[in-house]
């Protein structure tokens, strides 16, 4: 984007499109809802911790959906939990994003046939922006998913939410 590589001897003037500036700000501080479900949540926590350091992409967990930009569905979604996730999603302010992490959240995973209690994919309840495959995905995979989400936000228009 070239916002930061301008030299300050330019007179401190940076020319950019308002849209790009907005999107750059938004994609650089995706606050995620502090929410974990199963073994994927362990990998998500590892991603948040110092070794992989989610915070370097501006991702920090928030304790209320009202202050969150994104929710990572990290694990098996039971039918009982699905109703609660829907409520959390509805409480988040727009624009909001969803990363579906791992096979269970993507499509039911190993519970696809005999899991009487498992929702076969979170996209049956709420719209998903990025699917991260894996069982569970490694932190690198989740970071890749986050970069994909940032890419999506980078090309959004202020007039209309495309994601």
């Amino acid at each position: 984007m070239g916002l930061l590589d301008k030299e300050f001897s330019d007179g401190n003037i940076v020319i950019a499109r308002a849209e790009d500036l907005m999107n750059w700000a938004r994609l650089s501080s995706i606050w995620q809802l502090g929410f974990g479900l199963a073994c994927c949540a362990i990998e998500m926590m590892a991603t948040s911790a110092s070794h992989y350091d989610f915070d370097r992409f501006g991702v920090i967990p928030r304790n209320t959906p009202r202050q969150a930009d994104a929710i990572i569905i990290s694990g098996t979604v039971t039918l009982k939990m699905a109703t609660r996730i829907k409520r959390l999603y509805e409480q988040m302010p727009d624009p909001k994003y969803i990363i579906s992490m791992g096979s269970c959240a993507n499509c039911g995973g190993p519970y696809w046939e005999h899991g009487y209690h498992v929702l076969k994919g979170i996209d049956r309840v709420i719209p998903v922006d990025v699917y991260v495959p894996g069982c569970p995905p490694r932190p690198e995979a989740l970071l890749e998913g986050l970069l994909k989400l940032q890419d999506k936000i980078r090309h959004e228009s202020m007039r209309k939410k495309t994601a």
Partner: protein
Amino acid sequence: MKNSEEIFELLKKEFGEMILGLDKDTPVDPIISIDPMQVHKIGAFLRDNEDLKFDSLMVLSGVDDANGTKTKDEDGTDVISGGTLSVYYHLHSTIQKHKITIKVSTSRENPEVESVYNVWRTSDWHEREAFDMFGIIFKNHPDLRRILMPYDWEAGFPLRKDYKNPEFYQGMKVPY
């Protein structure tokens, strides 16, 4: 420490008819079958008797014996009528250092077992789970409601062998 035959004889002497049998031919602890409506009394005896002292209920599990008559309904799934549902109580004495398994069987159509909540408090959630998964009614349980499935789950009891999953739950499609 008592072996299974000694425990069985002790129970037989105290309760007579209510003790149904001893099965020693098991890969794990021997199983004593008893009357489902007397399990709370027999449980209290097992816990308090000086020679037995079964102070710990390690686990309580429900089982669908699936020994009734099987018929196919119109879409080809099994429906079982008659037969029994069972509850197994795995007991351990931390004082006498012995173990035994107690088994009760109850009818599939009207599955009622006395609660052992007042004997081993551990059984509280275990009985709720057996109720949730098999529909076994534990009489005199203080709070017998579903524990894992949603409270408004109306499709039946998932671990019964003839259970059929619903198409939808609260507007969400359930099958893959």
